[in-house]
C-alpha cells in the first residue's frame, strides 16, 4: 500500500477514535452514587456544625464530594420533577436539605423517620445542601 494510503487510513482511524471519545465525554452520565464510595459518613448534626463553624474550610473538604448523612426527617416536599427532604439538627434555622431527582426517592419516608442518605455536597446557605440524593435506608419512626 502506498504511503499516502497509510496516512489516510491513520487519519480516518484517529477521527473515528477521537469522535468516539468526544461522543462518550459529551454524553457521559452523572456519577452513579449507588456504586460510589462516600468521602465521609456523618450525622446531619455533624455536617451542619462543620459548615457552620468554618464554611470555607468545609467547602474545601466537602464541596462536590459524595457524603453519607443520617438524620431525622423534619419535612418532605414531593414534586413531580424533584423531591426535597429536610433533615433536622439542633440549630433552630439550619439543617440538611436533600434533593432527590424525579423517581430517585423510591420509598417515601415520613416526618420523624431516621433516614440514611447519600448525596453530593454543594455547600451551605441556611442549610447544607446535598443534591442527586439516594435513600440508603429508612428506619421507620417507632
Amino acid at each position, binding site marked *: 500500500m502506498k504511503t499516502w494510503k497509510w496516512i489516510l487510513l491513520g487519519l480516518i482511524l484517529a477521527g473515528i477514535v477521537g469522535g468516539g471519545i468526544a461522543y462518550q465525554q459529551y454524553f*457521559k*452520565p*452523572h*456519577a452513579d452514587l449507588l456504586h460510589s464510595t462516600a468521602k465521609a459518613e456523618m450525622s446531619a448534626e455533624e455536617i451542619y456544625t462543620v459548615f457552620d463553624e468554618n464554611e470555607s474550610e468545609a467547602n474545601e473538604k466537602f*464541596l462536590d464530594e459524595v457524603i453519607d448523612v443520617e438524620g431525622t426527617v423534619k419535612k418532605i416536599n414531593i414534586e413531580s420533577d424533584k423531591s426535597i427532604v429536610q433533615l433536622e439538627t439542633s440549630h433552630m434555622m439550619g439543617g440538611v436539605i436533600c434533593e432527590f*431527582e424525579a423517581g430517585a426517592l423510591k420509598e417515601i419516608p415520613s416526618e420523624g423517620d431516621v433516614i440514611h442518605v447519600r448525596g453530593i455536597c454543594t455547600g451551605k446557605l441556611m*442549610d447544607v445542601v446535598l*443534591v442527586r440524593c439516594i435513600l440508603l435506608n429508612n428506619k421507620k419512626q417507632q
Partner: protein
Amino acid sequence: MKTITILCTLLSLILFLSIDMQAQKYFTREAKISFFSEAPLEKIEAENGAGTCVIDFESQQMEFAVLIKAFQFDKALMQEHFNENYMESHKFPKATFKGKIVDPETIDYTKNGEYEVKVEGKLTIHGVENEISAPGTIVIKGEGIQVKSKFSVAVKDYDIDIPAVVRDNIAKTVEITVLGDLEPLK
C-alpha cells in the same frame, strides 16, 4: 347601632389582617431558580431547587441566595464546564440577590390574588455585583405567598469568560426564572 358595630368589627378585622400581613416575613429554602439560554448549537438549561428566599413586607426588602454547585444539568459534562470553566464555583460558591419591591402600593395584602411588582437590587454572580431591575409577580394565597420572576442578564456583566472557540455556541444573555412558595416566618 347593630350595623355600625358589625361594620366597625369588620373594619378592625380587615385593618388587623392588613397590618399583620404587612408586618410579616415570609421564607422558603426551596425556591426554584433556573436559567436558560439558546444558542445555535444547543440550548443550555439548569435548575436549582434549593434556593433560599426571604421577603419582609414591612420594609419591602427581599433576598435570594443560591448555591452554584446545586444547579443540575442534564449533561454531566455541561455541568462540569459550567462549574469549573465559567462560574468558578469553588471560588464563588453562591449567587445572591438583595433588593426591594419598589411599588408595594400595587399589592393588596388583604386580598388573595396576583400582583405585578417591580423589584430593584443588587445581583451578585461570579463575585461581581450589579444593580438590576426585574419584573415580578407576588401571589397572595391564604397564609402563604408565591413569588415569580423572569429576567435576563448579560454574561459579560459578570466577568464570565467564555473561550473564543465556543463563544458562538453560548448565548450572550441568559434568562433566569425564579419561583418560590413562601411560608410565614414564625
